[in-house]
């Protein structure tokens, strides 16, 4: 997925263009009339909500139809407070934010455990519920809404109406965009971008995926609440119709049309949608003269076409003209892990049994992995190797038996806890984030070590921590020989390089045991040679490795010992040569007459 070089603006030109655009926006009240300003206000408030949706949908893959409800919560809470509590309108801002964030935390805690479709339907449920609630509660004025809300003021100047609020809204959008960009270019941002490729990636780096999703959800809801607050003091009038399910659907459409892969997609989407909507309902309405909801039909069709042809929206087409500035990082060695592996067994699997509804997948299996050795787990197809792997890594619970890692009983531990203890792993099908660079993917592995408070991340106050995190990632890249590729997108690497990249990511967690799942699968001969050389070099540095593999020639090169498994039981163990001579093993592989 490499970008074509043609049409690229030079970095200097980009910067000038950006400043010009900003100036044009800031000075807009000077040369634009009231109506265009109101359009811009509308676009910008929608963009704030859309940016939250980009974080939810594009980054963590969660579709929400209920963002309008959170905007409504912020709007009504601040409107009500300004009307009835006699507060200075500026003081209603924290009320608006809390009114969105607290319910989001509760709803999120309940619903984020759901998967895919059910989650969308839950967002639909609360989206509708809010609309009906707002229309029913007398304190919210029912279907008539709240009116006569006082306006914001600064130094005696009243900031009511579209013109007055313009700069406030512009500043609001700028802050939201800035914080979102900061969020994405951070340790937190990197780990949340792995979520849609499978929770196992983040968990293997020691992350609590559920909490991360909840955090992003609350942030998106808070953004929506902020937009609601802006809306309240611009219109100074609220009615539930502005926060209906239809609006929730529209915000989702905006994010998708703009492109959920980038913050700017949210802005572009909001602009494109609002302008098209106005054109259609305004101009064409006159033309047809009757209530013809062209807008609805048009956007329904546009979304259908997008789903069929370009789910990435408009952004990929725009971003061709932009190339991100890339900084090359010099390697920085990480702090050594305090607990040096004990001599003797690093991993001890003792009498482990795993049953799946009556089917015995693993049957009384016992083996040990000694410090500093490379042990290979082999066996015919269906022998239970992946199950054993997942049991050790904590993705499955044993039915009985014990697993000890570094002298501690880890039976029943969650995978992220085992990861933090010192287990690193790779996956059978490579799981990298294709849109992140090589360096960023490796940096994910060091997530647990580089966590920083969220507020610091949002305000870009963690630059030193960032430099350390990326420097340590660069160190691991140098270790595996991929430092020269650090700025490239992971998708551009060959399969062999990607496998090595995954190992670098695992190494960035400072593991004491590496679990490799079929690392040589699908590789060509010379790629396998490179991989073998890497594993041997790691062993010389003292790393312990447990790998599952099929390729006998590869195993012969790297493994010290081999454990053969069939039907979930240990068939034999010993050196390669011993295994190859073992009659039972030959029968297991070649079959019996």
């Amino acid at each position, binding site marked *: 997925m490499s970008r074509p070089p043609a049409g690229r603006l030079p970095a200097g030109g980009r910067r000038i263009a950006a400043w010009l655009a900003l100036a044009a926006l800031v000075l807009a009240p000077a040369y634009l009339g009231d109506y265009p300003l109101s359009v811009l206000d509308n676009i910008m408030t929608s963009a704030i909500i859309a940016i939250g949706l980009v974080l939810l949908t*594009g980054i963590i893959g969660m579709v929400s139809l209920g963002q309008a409800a959170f905007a409504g919560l912020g709007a009504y809470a601040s409107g009500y407070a300004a009307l009835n509590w006699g507060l200075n309108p500026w003081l209603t801002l924290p009320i608006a934010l809390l009114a969105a964030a607290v319910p989001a935390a509760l709803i999120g805690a309940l619903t984020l455990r759901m*998967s*895919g*479709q059910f989650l969308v339907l839950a967002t639909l449920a609360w989206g509708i519920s809010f609309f009906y609630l707002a229309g*029913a509660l007398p304190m919210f004025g029912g279907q008539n809404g709240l009116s006569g809300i006082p306006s914001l003021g600064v130094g005696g100047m009243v900031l009511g109406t579209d013109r007055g609020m313009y700069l406030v809204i512009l500043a609001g959008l700028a802050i939201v965009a800035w914080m979102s960009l900061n969020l994405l270019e951070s340790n937190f941002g990197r780990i949340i971008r792995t979520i849609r490729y499978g929770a196992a990636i983040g968990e293997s780096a020691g992350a609590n995926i559920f909490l991360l999703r909840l955090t992003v959800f609350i942030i998106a809801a808070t953004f929506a609440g902020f937009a609601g607050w802006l809306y309240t003091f611009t219109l100074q009038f609220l009615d539930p119709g502005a926060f209906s399910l239809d609006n929730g659907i529209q915000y989702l459409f905006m994010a998708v049309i703009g492109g959920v892969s980038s913050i700017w997609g949210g802005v572009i989407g909001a602009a494109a949608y609002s302008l098209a909507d106005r054109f259609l309902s305004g101009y064409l309405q006159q033309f047809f003269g009757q209530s013809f*909801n062209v807008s609805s*039909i048009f956007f*329904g069709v546009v*979304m259908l076409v997008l789903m069929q042809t370009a789910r990435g929206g408009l952004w990929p087409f725009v971003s061709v003209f932009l190339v991100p500035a890339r900084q090359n990082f010099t390697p920085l060695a990480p702090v050594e892990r305090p607990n040096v592996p004990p001599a003797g067994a690093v991993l001890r699997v003792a009498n482990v049994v795993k049953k799946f509804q009556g089917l015995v997948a693993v049957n009384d299996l016992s083996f040990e992995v000694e410090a500093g050795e490379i042990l290979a787990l082999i066996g015919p197809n269906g022998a239970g190797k992946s199950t054993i792997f997942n049991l050790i890594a904590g993705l499955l619970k044993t039915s009985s038996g014990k697993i000890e890692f570094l002298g501690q009983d880890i039976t029943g531990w969650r995978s992220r806890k085992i990861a933090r203890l010192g287990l690193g792993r790779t996956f059978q099908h490579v799981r990298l984030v294709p849109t992140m660079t090589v360096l960023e993917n490796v940096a994910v592995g060091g997530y647990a070590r580089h966590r920083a408070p969220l507020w610091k991340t949002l305000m870009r106050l963690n630059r030193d921590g960032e430099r350390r995190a990326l420097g340590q990632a660069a160190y691991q890249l140098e270790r595996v020989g991929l430092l020269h590729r650090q700025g490239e997108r992971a998708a551009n690497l060959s399969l062999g390089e990607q496998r090595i990249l995954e190992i670098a990511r695992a190494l960035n967690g400072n593991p004491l045991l590496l679990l490799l799942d079929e690392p040589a699968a699908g590789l060509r001969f010379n790629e396998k040679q490179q991989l073998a050389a890497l594993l041997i070099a790691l062993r010389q540095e003292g790393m312990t490795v447990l790998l599952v593999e099929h390729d006998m020639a590869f195993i012969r090169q790297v493994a010290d010992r081999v454990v053969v498994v069939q039907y979930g039981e240990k068939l034999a163990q010993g050196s390669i040569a011993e295994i190859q001579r073992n009659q039972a093993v030959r029968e297991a592989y070649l079959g019996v007459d």
Partner: protein
Amino acid sequence: MNFLIFGFLIQNALTTGAIYVLISLTLFSVATVTRIIYVPIGEIMVFAPFGLSMLMNGQVPGTVWLLVLLGGIAFLQDVWQMIRARSRHGWRKAVLLYLAMPALVAGFSLASTGANVPFVIKLVAGCAAPVALNPVLFRVAFQPIASATRLVLLIAAIALHFALAGAGLYMFGPDGLRTPGLTGVAFRIGLIPINDQFLLILGACVALIAGMYLFFEYTLYGKALRATAIHRRGARLVGIDPDSASQVIFTIAGVVAVISGLLIGPLTTLFYDSGFLLGLKGFAGAILGELADYPMAALAALALAGLESFSAFYASEYKDVIVFALLIPILLYRSWRQPAQLEEEHFE
């Protein structure tokens, strides 16, 4: 609350409940066979009574022209596929389903506008277009993305609902519609007056549910649809085309939706967008169902209708909030019961 009111509420609950059960079973069947949550079923539901009303006034309903237009688009899509595959395979089906069928429906509807045409003919004509729309809608909107994730399919369904609702406004205007009841008979059980509409709806729902059950249990095509729901690839390997199966279940859903719409017509005032909410509430029951749990889904829908009916009486402004807010724990429960997802549930 006295016995009389209680009787009314129960009747009301059972009536709407029966319809919710019907809708929920249908949505559930469509979802298992196609993985699509058929949100636009609400629009199909209201197109029928509106279409019939227009025919009664001597006008051809817009749904007919929509069918012709979409049929043309579907045909072009098939032609494009044939060009790309360099084969004429399937041209017969394309011509029959996307050109001939809409033309027939159009002709029939035009012929039914006359004042002397018997009511029954108009009734059939009013149903023909909304039913026929469904397989065509599948081809145009969903077939090209039939193997996408459920999330993408859901977004497409929502987009389709959006477009069809807008089309509904154009075709039928913003005014409400109240169709007259079908018979004038009323009688009593004890002290409670029973509405004839109540019996009609109950009877029709029971008949349709029984019909669907018999279809899925005892006919070859019904079994083929079930097989597609259980294992899509396995169905392909025995020669069941998943796209054709999807069109069949969409058509069945269309028939059920049209009949439901006609049954509801006399009960409340229908607007061009009333269907959406009805569909959603019916869906609440569908979520609780599992493939072997038709009775569970039915029970849930009935309970929902009961709840709605009684809360309408006690706290009418909040009745919809209660119904939809309850959806969340239902979804939570359902999601917990569901085994681990095999496909990555992400968008894009």
